[in-house]
């Protein structure tokens, strides 16, 4: 008997949640088989088997968390004497209670040479009439999975892939969700209703209450837990101050138009230019590209490399993928990497190293029309830049000028006001003389 332990999948992970088991008791496993998907504080990651055997027992069900090193399943060494617990395959007999689906194409068999195999279809299993083939078009759903779900027994509820993913993300136990789809399958509408009506009503709600105006409790997933813990630490232990400056960005915006015209298809965004400008400003002011360390009597860690985190609003919550060595990357390189990382954030497929080692963070809410805002420092980083929208404003000498407001929030233990001001002056200077951003 071998224990399978909760793996350590990221540097900052302390516990992991089982997102999806890919093997069930009785399943044979060989090294390299995908065993389980683990949700860490940063991403959902696949974990493979290292040894051969048969899954004897699953100790941590889907949706539950365990500390690193805790056993999450047991594997028995291969022996023919171990009878695997029965897991019916789609090919096994269907219980009499659920009638086998009708052939959608029974009529076709009347045509010599044109007989087709009976295709179990959702419409048939749901009792809907399907025309025999010669009298109408065949409409067949991919319903083998539906049949499989119904013969699998009470252990596994039929649910659509979309529902399984959403349940994983929202931390919902599907065994409690009523299914109204064909054969009792849980569909998204069921989940949405369950999410608004029945998730752990807070104390005081009437028993059996289905009043949708009651507050509902949505359990934190791993990402949300990390956000909550990190920012609480930051806001309650780091003394911060903010400085704001605005830059006239007419030239920058013109330059972007010219760059994009020259690039033939690939587009760089204002944010890409901003990342590059910030990286250069950090290079000019190493004291801002720094972290606080409590070691000894306290020290400032000056980072030799410039890794800029870019805050992204993903379906899973706030995620900060990192453009490593941003000071050595061209704007087009930054643009391509940012687009790739944002895509991965949306799919929850970011690798741990794509989220690690940022020395500074940019949070840009310009696309929402926000004029300016302050952000919370993400420890151990020393500072974070909050970027607003480009706004057209009256110019002092008449006419208009387009301006961009940037607000730096800094850890005052290592960064003083003058340094923060110098950094912002360098940054606005770069943005106002945009050729220096590209240079």
């Amino acid at each position, binding site marked *: 008997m071998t224990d399978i332990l909760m793996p350590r999948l990221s540097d900052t992970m302390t516990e992991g949640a089982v997102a999806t088991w890919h093997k069930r008791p009785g399943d044979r496993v060989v090294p390299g088989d995908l065993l389980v998907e683990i949700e860490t504080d940063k991403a959902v990651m696949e974990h493979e088997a290292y040894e051969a055997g048969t899954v004897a027992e699953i100790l941590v069900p889907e949706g539950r968390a365990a500390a690193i090193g805790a056993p999450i399943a047991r594997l028995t060494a291969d022996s023919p004497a171990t009878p695997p617990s029965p897991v019916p395959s789609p090919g096994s007999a269907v219980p009499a209670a659920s009638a086998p689906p009708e052939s959608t*194409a029974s009529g*076709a068999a009347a*045509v010599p040479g*044109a007989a*087709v195999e009976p295709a179990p279809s*959702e*419409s048939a299993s*749901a009792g*809907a009439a399907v025309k025999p*083939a*010669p*009298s*109408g*078009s*065949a*409409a*067949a*759903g*991919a*319903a083998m*999975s*539906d049949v499989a779900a119904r013969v699998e027994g009470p252990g596994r509820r039929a649910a*659509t*892939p*979309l*529902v*399984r*993913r959403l349940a994983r993300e929202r931390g919902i136990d599907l065994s409690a969700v009523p299914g*109204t*789809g*064909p054969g009792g*399958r849980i*569909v*998204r*509408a*069921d989940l949405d209703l369950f999410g608004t009506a029945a998730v752990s009503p807070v104390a005081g709600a009437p028993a059996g209450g289905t009043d949708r105006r009651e507050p509902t409790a949505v359990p934190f997933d791993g990402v949300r837990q990390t956000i909550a813990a990190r920012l609480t630490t930051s806001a309650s232990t780091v003394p911060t101050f903010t400085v704001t400056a605005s830059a006239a960005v007419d030239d920058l915006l013109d330059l972007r138009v010219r760059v994009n015209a020259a690039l033939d298809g690939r587009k760089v965004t204002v944010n890409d230019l901003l990342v590059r400008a910030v990286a250069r400003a950090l290079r000019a002011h190493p004291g801002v590209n720094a972290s606080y360390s409590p070691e000894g009597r306290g020290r400032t860690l000056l980072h030799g490399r410039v890794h800029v985190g870019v805050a992204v609003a993903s379906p899973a919550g706030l995620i900060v993928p990192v453009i490593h060595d941003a000071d050595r990357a061209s704007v087009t390189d930054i643009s391509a990497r940012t687009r790739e990382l944002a895509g991965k954030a949306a799919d929850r497929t970011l690798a741990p190293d794509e989220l690690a080692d940022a020395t500074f963070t940019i949070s840009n809410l310009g696309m929402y029309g926000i004029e300016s805002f302050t952000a919370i420092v993400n420890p151990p980083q020393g500072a974070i830049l909050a970027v607003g929208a480009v706004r057209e404003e009256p110019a002092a000498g008449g006419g208009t000028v387009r301006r961009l407001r940037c607000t730096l929030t800094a850890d005052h233990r290592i960064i003083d006001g003058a340094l923060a001001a110098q950094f912002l002056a360098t940054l606005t200077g770069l943005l106002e003389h945009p050729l220096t951003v590209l240079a």
Partner: protein
Amino acid sequence: MTVRSYREALHDALRTELRRDESVFLLGEEIGRFEGSYKITAGLLDEFGPKRVRDTPIAEEGFTGAAVGAAMLGLRPVVEIMTINFSLLALDQIVNHAAKVYGMFGGQARVPMVIRTPGGGGQQLGATHSQNVELYYAFVPGMKVVAPSDPADAKALLLAAIRDDDPVLVLENLALYNTRGEVPDHDEPAPIGTARITRTGTDITLVAYSRMAAVALQVAERLAETDGIDAEVVDLRSLRPLDRDTVVASVRKTNCAVVLEDDWLTYGIGAEVAATISDGAFDWLDAPVRRVAMAEVPLPYAKPLETAALPSADDAIAAVRQTLDAVARRR
């Protein structure tokens, strides 16, 4: 923009290319003096002469093979095969020569030829003259297959096919020849391998090509009126290369899909689309992908039977309603 028929749009594209490029020439059965069985080549013999518009014997393998050779030596032949059913006689020339030459002989010669040919049933032409066998060609690496559903795409995709350096089969459709629509006056080709979202919607994705893409649009409009269903329509336009990204992105948005196809269901193009959706949008699916296709029979000649065997707008509407019933999102 000018309103043109699908037939006229194809004619316009041929005439444009014959005028633009001396190496373009047409060949096929009865395309010259008879002006083509479906009149696509009307007037072109008079305008361009018998060297550029060549009538051929009834010998599909022979004239398709001649086009392969001409293309290898630098001309741009546009072959008309009267219907896709007759292309089976030229299958070896298309599959084993046109599609293979470039890759098999180290890129020494390209085969910039076009085969124009209509598919489609519903004209009471019997089982051997009413098929949709575009799959045979979309299956073969080395081929490109485009399938326009409206006059604008008929012109733009035929222009693209003639200018492409690989063999391209342009699937026309008997039932679409008389349909009309706005066609740009310019001669810009459409990119081959790019699907088009012809109607944006949020509730369900309809994927189709050729005639069924036109049906899908009608179905979407009817469902919006009668059921308040907001369907998105993806017109594949190109069967090879297949624009999987557009299909997947749409299904990730709507969470369910129905594929409409004029060919047979089993092993059909809808099966490839369904597999594409399963690969790229599995975690976004709230219902199985459903397919609407032709009945699994040789198409009958008798009108009532022929109509019953072909996929219809009503069949598509039923499939959409069943799918949305399954996800409890039908209003």
